[in-house]
């Protein structure tokens, strides 16, 4: 790999890490299409590199969000039981699956993601604090925008666990963080405020991707130079994103990103049918 390609890949990974840290995602929805469509890298290799970038985005963003008290660590750890199981199963399916089928599945994921970005309203109804099933997952954080302390409880843990298994499966199968499923589930079903849902998702995706990344590493499907370049880019992007998040208009960003993803989904479908390489 020559230096110009390395720098180009690193720049794209900076963008992925930036958006990922702002929206609670891992950035895989950007990295995988670019690697496969622009650089012609096989799907499995792109997924392996993306899982590494997801861990980098999560590590970079979560260290800041944990310090700010925005990540609900206890909720994250409970949901991680489900996401890691899903991730291992997804990764095992992926290493034996044809890359054109993976491209088509990725296209479907992007269509769902764009629907979520363009349509889903944020739930602002906070759950009352107190136990949720066997656990008390209530949490508080200081909201910078309103200068107020936000206190919330968590509800519907069973549904959240089920959805987290699906999110984990998507992560292992398609090399994304699964935040695109976890963030709306936490916000709309479990009553977690949007900022806390994004920060908790960022915290979780590292462990979710870890389970899948280990399987890919063992199967020799990670190109070290490619993965190293995207990891460094994602670290830088996440560091910028977490420290400048208050300057971005979340809703506007989501709408632009939603439209871009529809275009990328179309390209992934063309690839899955062999129209483009």
């Amino acid at each position, binding site marked *: *790999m020559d*230096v110009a390609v*390395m720098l180009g890949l690193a720049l794209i990974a900076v963008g992925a890490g930036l958006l990922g840290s702002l929206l609670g995602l891992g950035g895989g929805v950007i990295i995988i299409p670019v690697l496969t469509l622009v650089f012609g890298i096989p799907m499995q290799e792109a997924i392996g590199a993306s899982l*590494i970038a997801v*861990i*980098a985005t*999560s*590590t*970079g963003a*979560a*260290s800041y969000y*944990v*310090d700010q*008290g925005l990540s609900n*660590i*206890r909720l994250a*750890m*409970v949901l*991680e*039981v489900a996401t*890691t*199981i899903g*991730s*291992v199963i997804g*990764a*095992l399916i992926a*290493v034996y699956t044809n890359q054109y089928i993976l491209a088509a599945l990725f296209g479907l994921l992007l269509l769902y993601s764009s629907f979520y970005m363009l349509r889903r309203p944020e739930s602002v109804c906070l759950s009352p604090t107190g136990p949720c099933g*066997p*656990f008390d997952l209530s949490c508080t954080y200081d909201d910078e925008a309103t200068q107020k302390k936000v206190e919330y409880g968590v509800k519907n843990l069973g549904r959240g666990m089920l959805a987290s298994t699906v999110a984990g499966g998507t992560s292992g199968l398609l090399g994304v963080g699964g935040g695109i499923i976890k963030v709306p589930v936490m916000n709309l079903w479990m009553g977690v405020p949007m900022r806390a849902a994004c920060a908790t998702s960022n915290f979780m995706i*590292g*462990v979710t*991707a*870890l*389970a*899948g*990344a*280990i*399987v890919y*590493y*063992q*199967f*020799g499907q*990670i*190109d*070290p*130079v490619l*993965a*190293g*370049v995207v*990891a*460094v880019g994602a*670290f830088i992007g996440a560091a910028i994103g977490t420290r400048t998040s208050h300057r971005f208009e979340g809703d506007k960003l989501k709408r632009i990103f939603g439209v871009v993803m529809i275009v990328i989904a179309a390209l992934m479908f063309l690839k899955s049918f062999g129209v483009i390489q």
Partner: protein
Amino acid sequence: MSSNKPPLNRNIRFVLQAGMLSSLALLVAGLVWYALAPSGTDFTLGLSEAINAILSGDPVGLICLGLMLLIATPLLRIIVALGTFLQMREWKFVAVSVAVLLVIATAVLIKG
């Protein structure tokens, strides 16, 4: 300022930052070395193979060390959370942390 944070947040933040900075340093050093002296190795190496590669002048060994450290960071974060929950006698969350570790151990045992 961080000393006012709850111990769980403080410990986890420390592990994540240490993992991020050390893996970033190894990756950047390895990639700069690779840019100056490219290598033909295009597959991941285990720990002892990576160290041998570094000693024989292959930059991919250093990149693989950085990747292994990066992958290990979320794992270390779970172990630190487990230790903190044990210290705080939050037994339900001790059980949750052990369950996550068991799933990851299963992933490690799966060989290609």
